[in-house]
């Protein structure tokens, strides 16, 4: 056991390293990759950020959320609606973070203060996602508009304005710049997660995951801590949604069960209780899905399904823990 001081310093170091690596990637990758690869990489990063948000909430907070896509979708829609109404899309960013965070806090209040537990929490989050999905799908009519932004029902909002240079609404960010922003967000969130987990707050959150009753008996308000970590997760998912809105566009599928399920799968394959694993898991599985779509004559669902079943049976703890153990064994 190391002294907490050393650990904190190491966490800080990891956070700084992540930011440096991100800075390097943001500068270097657009120079070597083709344009389409840069754009697709931005989508992958948005998804990786979504996976990271669930990794925090589920892996460390112990809250299995079946509706992470709800916050993802809310972030995307909040950004699109605000960007269409505001003169400078930069102002839409805080909206895209605030709306899903508040939604997560409200939902968290219902669940944690109502003492809803494990599977039941899963069902509530799933149901909320379904309600949002049904609702947003039925907003095709002209009467459904917020200010200048029609909600568009099933078709979504194709005319989502991209981010512009802060303070200069005329200059829209190029795909390479959006990529840099995305990778910055991912690294930033990763660093924040690392720091949160090393803080007193983070330690209490993990303690609650390990033994809720014991933590409560030690005098911590379990509900409040869970609520807080859930809201942070909602915020990060919202950020992912905003990035997604910038490189794809917002449509009700963002709220779909398929997305909610995919995120869980990414985190699971990457390793529950790790941060880097889910990020890698998200990217790997995204690439696999896209690759499966280019194979002639093979049904992609079949491939994905098989990969999943095999992953659960062969590497039950996920990629990161399994790899770490392997490496430790090699180098005694």
């Amino acid at each position, binding site marked *: 056991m190391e002294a907490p001081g050393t650990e904190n310093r190491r966490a800080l170091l990891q956070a700084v390293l992540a930011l440096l690596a991100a800075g390097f990637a943001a500068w270097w990758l657009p120079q070597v990759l083709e*344009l389409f690869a840069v*754009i697709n990489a931005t989508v992958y990063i948005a998804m990786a950020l979504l996976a990271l948000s669930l990794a925090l909430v589920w892996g460390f907070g112990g809250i299995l959320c079946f509706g992470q896509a709800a916050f993802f979708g809310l972030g995307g829609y909040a950004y699109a609606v605000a960007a269409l109404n505001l003169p400078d899309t930069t102002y839409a960013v805080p909206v895209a973070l605030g709306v899903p965070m508040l939604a997560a806090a409200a939902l968290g209040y219902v669940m944690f203060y109502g003492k809803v537990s494990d599977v039941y929490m899963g069902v509530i989050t799933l149901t909320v996602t379904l309600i949002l999905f049904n609702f947003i799908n039925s907003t095709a009519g002209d009467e459904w508009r917020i200010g200048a932004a029609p909600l568009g*029902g*099933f078709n*979504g909002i*194709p005319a989502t304005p991209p981010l512009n240079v802060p303070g200069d609404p005329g200059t829209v960010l190029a795909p390479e710049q959006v990529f840099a922003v995305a990778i910055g967000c991912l690294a930033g969130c990763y660093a924040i997660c690392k720091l949160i987990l090393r803080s007193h707050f983070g330690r209490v959150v993990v303690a609650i995951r390990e033994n809720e009753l014991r933590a409560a008996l030690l005098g911590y308000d379990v509900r409040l801590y869970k609520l807080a970590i859930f809201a942070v997760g909602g915020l990060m998912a919202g950020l992912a949604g905003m990035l997604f809105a910038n490189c794809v566009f917002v449509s009700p*599928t963002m709220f779909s069960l398929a997305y909610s399920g995919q995120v869980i799968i990414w985190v699971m394959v990457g390793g529950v209780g790790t941060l880097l694993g889910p990020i890698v898991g998200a990217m790997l599985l995204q690439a696999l899905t896209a690759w*499966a779509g280019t194979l002639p004559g093979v049904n992609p669902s079949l491939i994905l399904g098989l990969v999943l079943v095999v992953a659960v049976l062969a590497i039950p703890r996920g990629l990161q823990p399994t790899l770490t153990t392997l490496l430790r064994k090699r180098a005694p």
Partner: protein
Amino acid sequence: MQRRTLIAAAGGLAAPLVFRHAALGADPIKVVSIHDASGGLDIYGKPMIACVDFAAEEINAAGGLLGRPVQVINYDPQSNIQLYTQFATQAATRDKAAAVHGGITSASREAIRPVLKRYNTLYFYNTQYEGGVCDRNCFCTGSTPAQNVQRLVPHIMQKWGKKVYIVAADYNYGQITSKWVTKFFREGGGDAVAVDFFPLDVTNFGPAIQKIQAAKPDVVVSALVGGAHVSFYRQWAAAGMKSRIPMASTTFGGGNESLLLSPEEGDGIVCAFSYFQEVDSPVNRAFLDRLRAKLGANTPYLGGELAMRSYVGMQLWAEGVRKAGSIDRTKVIEALGSGISVDGPPGRTTLDSKTNHVTLDVYVAEVKNRGFNVLQHFPNSPPSDTQSVCDLQKEPNANRQVVVDVRI
């Protein structure tokens, strides 16, 4: 790794074409097709892919385009909007496709369209839809409500009566189409007694069927979409309603819905599309013979228009390239805008340069024994709905989908 495998896969796909046309000896012209071959929309996507491939083979068999063979690269977005965007980006910036054919739902089209516009890649959307797309780079070759609903409604009003009950899928297509149905009924002196919308995953239609019975309409018009909604027709028949209230639909048969039902459940539903496999013309018979000779037992049932429009879309693009003498996007757009038409299995299709939509033949047919029986044929129906809101001659930089204001 992804990239190398992909090239290998694309190469494998193209190998037979290149081999056969080695004589042409030139770089192939790449056409990317993005259609769902898996997931919930594959019932529409698979026949569309078969028709795009077949059109390319016919073009190649006739010597290719500009002395070069045409190579189709198929991507399967798995009924997932995000993959549509990714594959469209890939098609435009990496494959440098001469044209992209694809998209089934309006949402998937809106995912593709801005990407291809941004990267200056020609786009063909070959599906029946609600109308209103106004974009010089995007050619919509399917029928719109002013074409099919306008023909369907007078037919059923004359046959069955003036009071209609509309059941529609709760998304953009359903919402807009139900307005058009109401409009045409009112124009004929009738009216809609009620309109009900259903989320796409509803499977229990018992309450709806009872509501319809209480409203006692002369006819029911359905604009329901997808596998779950097929339940409606089955529960309708099971409740013994088929013999009491006749039904028409703007969507039934667009894919393969008619195959899912037994004859007792499906027979008698009246539909209107710009093509039915059963269209009785020498051109169509010859086309079907060629398709069967090529695909054998794997020949899909083409049903309504979606698959055939994909074939015609390829023909129109090829005609544009021939006329332009180049695959350069602006030249092809100009050539296409000069009033090109092709005579294909569904009749004559003429591009309307004002809207980039098409003037086409509309057929009214009724379901019969898992297929269709064509009742009426209306040649040369213009896309008047989109024409009322879009003029690309005056506004060449337009880039939007206008919701056609249906005055009812």
